[in-house]
């Protein structure tokens, strides 16, 4: 691929200077995209793939909620319903939320934030995208080959006995696992080896800390999922007797294997979103992040504790009482670093200058939703209450608050925050905020009633239900429609901006981390020279420039001699 940046100009890093060429237009044709080694283009392809999967999974959700408007059959029979909730869960988990922030946004932003030209292994990066595509194709094949009705958890012995496309879907999961491992490995090596001069570990933006912690989980936990999937394939194909009690196997063993991956995977979903929120809250409040080290350490702590709590999915599975008690105790440990982050974000807003941009609105929605998601986790970690709540709509509500409400709202915040950087276009903030309000209201209307459904006795994965639950189900379905429409509005607003949006300045929000120091969209090689990194949260290092309609480094504003790095230390 041709190098397009004129590296002879030493000032080419400066945002004032708009270059004609950027990574989007430096070459064209489908091959220049499909075989690109540019992390930004790979990230864009991920983003498109994730978005399509999101709307497919969302369509399933809307159909499910429509069926649940009444205890009677409205749209589909129980077989179709069971396949649809399985595919909704599997697609949203494996194709949307797990790769959403790390693979799509992380790929685009991580190297730019590091002031690097690319990730450490660009070819492996492209490979991880092809694996994602390949895995997604297996999922689509599974739908075509008679669906999948096991639930996304594939619990044995049901998954061994059902005659749906379990093997096809599991091979898809296996391949997606490799995609996830490749991304994680790439990020770890990139962060270790490619930080620019001046960027010590504790001068690294918190989004990178979050991606680093995420990557650790990805490479340590995902292999277990791969092995579990293969064991299940072998069990189905050859009836070995690993999980099937009829052959001397143990179905609970499968649950241990499965959750050993899938619980840490929850943190693969939420940690990057937390990283995004740390950036968004600081930048749009124009404040230095509060308690930087506590937030950084809490990411690592969450990643570590996340490995020790998988048994809390199995309090009523027949595992021993002692094991249940130990897992309950450890589970509470995860709540502490999560709480620390929330308090830190709030304190960051204190005495700030808060702009209610769309990204910030999603950031605030995240704090609201994540607080509910996190706090309701306490009911499930507590043994006596979990026995009643396990496998009910309370759990459905809780994990949607964490996985959809927090991880996806985090993704939405990230997309809006970095959209000008990625596309070089500003979107319409008013439409963005309206969509955000719709997502927020729709989401809460969908899932809050489900807490009540759960405590009152509505089990999850039910195609029909007792009449007394209908009112709450109707509320929930109305929320789902609002949520679906708002998501479509969000997508429409963003897509419209690509064609009609104003040209974006290099630094529209006033961020101080390195990705705002190159032009929007970045040139093919991001930076001609490794930029000098300072404290990424000193918002005073950039000032608003009326002419450009964006922020510029202080030293570019004429007589002010202060430099980015010199103003870096403002520890009180």
């Amino acid at each position, binding site marked *: 691929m041709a190098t397009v940046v004129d590296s002879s100009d030493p000032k080419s890093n400066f945002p004032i200077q708009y270059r004609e060429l950027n990574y989007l237009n430096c070459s064209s044709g489908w091959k220049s995209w499909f075989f690109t080694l540019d992390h930004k283009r790979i990230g864009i392809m991920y983003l498109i793939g994730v978005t399509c999967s999101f709307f497919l999974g969302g369509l399933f959700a809307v159909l499910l909620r429509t069926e649940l408007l009444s205890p009677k059959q409205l749209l589909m029979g129980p077989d179709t319903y069971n396949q649809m909730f399985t595919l909704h869960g599997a697609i949203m988990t494996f194709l949307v939320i797990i790769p959403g922030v790390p693979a799509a946004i992380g790929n685009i932003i991580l190297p730019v934030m590091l002031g690097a030209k690319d990730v450490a292994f660009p070819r492996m990066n492209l490979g991880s995208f092809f694996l994602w595509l390949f895995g997604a194709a297996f999922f689509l094949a599974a739908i075509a080959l008679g669906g999948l009705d096991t639930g996304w958890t594939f619990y044995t*012995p049901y998954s061994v006995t059902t005659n749906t496309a379990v093997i096809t879907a599991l091979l898809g999961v296996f391949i997606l696992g490799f995609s996830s491992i490749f991304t994680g490995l790439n990020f770890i090596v990139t962060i270790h080896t490619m930080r620019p001069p001046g960027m010590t570990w504790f001068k690294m933006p918190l989004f990178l800390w979050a991606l680093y912690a995420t990557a650790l989980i990805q490479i340590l936990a995902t292999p277990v999922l791969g092995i579990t999937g293969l064991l299940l394939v072998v069990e189905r194909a050859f009836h070995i007797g690993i999980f099937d009690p009829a052959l001397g196997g143990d179905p609970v063993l499968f649950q241990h294997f499965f959750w050993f991956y899938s619980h840490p995977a929850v943190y693969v979903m939420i940690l990057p979103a937390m990283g995004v929120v740390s950036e968004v809250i600081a930048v749009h409040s124009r404040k230095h992040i509060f308690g930087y080290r506590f937030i950084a350490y809490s990411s690592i702590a969450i990643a570590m504790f996340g490995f020790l709590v998988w048994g809390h999915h199995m*309090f009523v*599975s027949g595992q021993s009482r002692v094991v249940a008690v130990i897992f309950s105790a450890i589970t509470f440990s995860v709540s502490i670093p999560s709480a620390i982050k929330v308090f830190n974000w*709030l304190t960051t807003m204190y005495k*700030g200058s808060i702009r*209610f941009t769309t990204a910030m609105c999603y950031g605030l929605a995240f704090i609201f939703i994540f607080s509910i998601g996190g706090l309701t986790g306490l009911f499930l970690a507590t043994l*006596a209450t979990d*026995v009643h709540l396990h*496998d009910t709509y309370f759990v459905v509500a809780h994990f949607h608050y964490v996985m959809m409400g927090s991880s996806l709202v985090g993704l939405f915040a990230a997309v809006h925050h970095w959209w000008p950087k990625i596309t070089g276009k500003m979107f319409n903030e008013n439409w963005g905020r309206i969509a955000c309000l719709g997502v927020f209201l729709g989401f809460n209307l969908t899932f809050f009633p489900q807490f009540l459904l759960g405590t009152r006795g509505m089990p999850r994965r039910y*195609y029909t239900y007792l009449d007394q639950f209908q009112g709450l189900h109707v509320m929930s379905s109305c929320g789902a429609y609002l949520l679906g429409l708002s998501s479509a509005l969000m997508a429409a607003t963003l897509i419209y901006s690509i064609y009609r949006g104003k040209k974006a300045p290099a630094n529209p929000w006033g961020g101080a981390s390195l990705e705002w120091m190159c032009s929007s969209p970045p040139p093919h090689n991001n930076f001609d020279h490794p930029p000098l990194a300072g404290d990424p949260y000193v918002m005073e290092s950039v000032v608003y420039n009326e002419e450009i309609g964006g922020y510029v480094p202080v030293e570019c504003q004429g007589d002010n001699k202060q430099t980015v790095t010199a103003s870096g230390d403002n520890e009180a």
Partner: protein
Amino acid sequence: MKLFIPNMLANADAGFWFPEQSSTVAEHSDSVYFFILYVCTFFFVLIVSLMVLFMVKYRHRPGVEATKTSTHNLTLELSWSVIPTLLTIVMFWVGFTGYIDMRTPPSDSYEINVIAKKWVWAFQYPNGWIESELHIPKDENVTLTMSSDDVIHSLWVPAFRTKMDVVPGRYTQEWFKATRAGEFPLMCAEYCGQKHSMMVTKVVVHETRGDFDKWLQQASDIHKNKTPVEAGEYFYKTRGCVQCHSLDGVPKNGPSFKGLFGKEEKLADGSTVKVDANYLRESILEPQAQVVLGFKPIMPTFKGQLTDQDISALIAFIKAQK
């Protein structure tokens, strides 16, 4: 919103959060729930009010920049780490003590065996009688010893606040002491396939042990005052046949019973069989032996759960469906 509120509160048997407490462990479970709820509500209100306060007070005004404040404060950060830690230790402890009670069946329990299968419950009483509804006496410890014939199920009585998975290949136990007479929903909470959501039955709590014993005696006497067809109909309705075999000629998961007796049926292996008493008996005891073409081999066996007399009654009932 207003539309739904009357509906939400219409169920007189239920409180706002939970069905009315009907077992001895329910009170503890609920009080732990409300303790956590109050703590969480406090923190949630604190977080959201601070957020809203900051949103209003520190919203961007033209010409006003953010005020530089301290970027960390060890005392503050330690306090918001340590206080939640202490609170979670309390939560763990109260949850732990309640759980140990729930998971320790008392030694003086009345024991009932449970067999779960797709998609029906079979409760076997000490005298051997099997029923698809659970009947228990009030104020007496009842222990369920549960196993599954096929996949994992989970027995849940929301009014009792107890739940336990029923796992094939092992026995699990669940116990409760009902504190209110009446009927309560009992359901399967672990996804088990097509009719998972229809695996719902009820617990009937009898006022006294005498009432319960009288019920059990009458129930297990099913053949006494009934013709074989009536008794067969009873088994048809209570043992799960009704889930898959209709009486109106429309096939469900299995062939309809209407006009079935005496019919020539094509089998999955290509041969044919005449549906007579021998074939029906075999299909009840060894359902997979000769599966009719066009149906999945999913019927569970009833071996050991129906006596010869019960099977004869069922055959008489099927024969009567002309």
